[in-house]
């Protein structure tokens, strides 16, 4: 994938971890493409109902959010509780950009593309701004700053008013814009974006997932990615061999934010109305659940968890009122079963008996568990 230029002190970083890329990338891209074909087939043959078909774009969005959050939580090793904030920035700037270019681009796909680019840029800027104070913080203090950021974004969205009339774009804080009729409104405070023209499609979602995967996997397996992981594993040791800790932390954070902004933009173009409450703390947590449940740092584990858990509430619809309760219990039980050392040992014994292709140690979980102690 890359050339080694001159043999200098950073040679180690460049060489380490080679060879793993091909397999992981192949599996990840494969999962996405097979998933796409299966879902398309299911929709065509009518196995997948109308309700679930409506979930296709959100599934893609959440899968790519899980991948981008994995860059921060798994690869950079920092807990982020504000991923929905970046998603919100991407969604709302994307919606505004799409509305602004309505007269310029006739094609919905072009407007979606513009929305995604604008969303990514603004989310990256937000990531950069919030990334700077974060650099001096450790562990749970960092987590709370990301949480605070997510809440601040949502709070601002609640008082933000945007509209477009013949004079151009108008915006206000805290009060409605006078002399504007409904069709000219873009964002109306706590009600959020209204009368958005839906331009997102399942195909666009799949391209989003593939692009996110491409960026994260390439970053992970580049010199920079190994720098990021070196800092995660041991900050001081990394610093002492000349790795720029702040640069790498910020890099992971900003790239992750930009990718979340892209996902947010696609999400925003999938609904005719979108309220800021959609991007609250629970959404950030939801994405974190995908990452942890899929195995921290394990990219395709997170993807599968995201897809399954997005569908699960739909699938549990037959339980009606008990739906979210069942979801909560499933979450607790799965967490205990996958992370409890005793139960894990019993599981791996069972798997060893059944599975003829034994793997040497399960990396995904030891990575997550070990680094915090």
């Amino acid at each position, binding site marked *: 994938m890359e050339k080694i230029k001159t043999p200098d002190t950073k040679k180690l970083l460049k060489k380490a971890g080679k060879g793993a890329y091909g397999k992981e990338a192949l599996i990840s891209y494969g999962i996405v493409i097979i998933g796409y074909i299966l879902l398309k087939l299911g929709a065509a043959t009518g196995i997948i109902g109308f309700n679930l078909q409506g979930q296709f774009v959100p599934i893609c969005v959440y899968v790519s959010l899980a991948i981008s959050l994995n860059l921060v939580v798994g690869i950079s090793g920092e807990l982020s509780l504000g991923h929905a904030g970046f998603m919100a920035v991407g969604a709302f700037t994307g919606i505004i950009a799409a509305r602004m270019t309505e007269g310029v681009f006739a094609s919905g796909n072009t407007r979606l593309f513009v929305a995604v680019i604008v969303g990514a840029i603004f989310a990256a800027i937000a990531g950069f701004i919030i990334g700077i*104070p974060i650099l001096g913080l450790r562990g749970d203090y960092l987590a709370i*700053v990301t949480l605070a950021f997510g809440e*601040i974004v949502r709070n601002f969205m609640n008082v933000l008013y945007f509209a477009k009339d013949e004079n151009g774009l108008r915006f206000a804080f*805290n009060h409605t814009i006078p002399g504007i009729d409904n069709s000219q409104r873009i964002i109306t405070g706590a009600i959020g974006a209204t009368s958005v023209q839906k331009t997102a499609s399942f195909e666009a979602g799949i391209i989003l997932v593939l692009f996110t995967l491409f960026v994260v996997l390439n970053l992970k397996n580049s010199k920079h990615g190994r720098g990021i992981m070196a800092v995660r594993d041991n900050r*001081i040791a990394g610093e002492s061999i000349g790795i720029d800790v702040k640069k790498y932390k910020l890099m992971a954070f900003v790239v992750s934010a930009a990718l979340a902004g892209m996902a947010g933009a696609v999400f925003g173009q999938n609904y005719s109305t979108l309220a800021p409450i959609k991007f609250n*703390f629970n959404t950030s947590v939801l994405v974190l659940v995908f990452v942890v449940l899929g195995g921290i740092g394990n990219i395709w584990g997170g993807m599968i968890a995201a897809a399954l858990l997005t569908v699960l509430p739909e699938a549990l619809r037959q339980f009606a009122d008990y739906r979210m309760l069942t979801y*909560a219990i499933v979450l607790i039980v799965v967490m*205990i079963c996958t992370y409890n050392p005793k139960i894990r040992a019993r599981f791996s014994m069972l798997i060893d008996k059944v599975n003829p292709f034994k793997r040497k140690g399960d990396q995904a979980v030891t990575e997550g568990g070990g680094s915090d*102690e």
Partner: protein
Amino acid sequence: MGFINSLISGLSLGSVYAIIALGYTMVYGISKMLNFAHGDVIMVGGYISFCMTMYIGMPGWAALLVAMAVCTLLGILIERLAYRPLRGTGSLAVLITAIGVSYFLQNTALLIWGANPRVFTSLFKGISTMHAADGKLTITPESLFTIVACVIIMIALTLFVNKTKAGKAMRAVSEDNGAAQLMGINVNQSISLTFAIGSGLAAVAGVLMCSAYPVLMPTTGAMPGIKAFTAAVFGGIGSIPGAMVGGLILGVIEIFARAYISTELSDAIVFACLIIVLLVKPTGLFGKKISEKV
């Protein structure tokens, strides 16, 4: 006088945050986990107290005691069933489980009590509001008793942690889990005790909060929980005086932001203050600096 009125209601709200933050900070200190279900224990406390007064006709103080007892048991149960199997597996796994517990509590409450907001009768409804300075200064019994309760809890907890044997054991466990065990301290018991105290305090906070802001819903505890968590970090997570001071400051900032800047943006201002404080003091106001060894 508007300023002093705001200050009093700020201190009162801050006292509620402080009491909740104590639960966060103690649990964090002893088991190094962020217990996101803590906010929902507040909600359970509120509902239990509501039911006791509404359906059984208990007096307010008795309902408070019942709520405390139920929440204490609930805290112990949550720790035993959900967190203990994951002890020592890293904070992220426990964090997600805590979130699962939080969803569980919210949705159980939704099933039992429904989504409609219930109006909570104040614990102090018989006591009239006090006026001073020609009626310009208003002190509601809710704010007065909340502040008093906060001070009492603070003193009692400090004495308990520093003077009693169980308190010393708790401190030892939070200092070094393994060493404490080797010295013959029952670690499990200490952790259970911490959860019990934290959850009992959450019930008190829930009743006090619902007395001042009498709307009770399954999601009532979520936002105060997040704010109290912020307060705990503000003061330096793991530190008991830190949680107290952090809670009070946060409450005052929130009320002042609401009164003088913007109601809608008050949360944003609170969180922005937190970020600024952490920029200056990366481990919070009372946090210990941890030096790393290579």
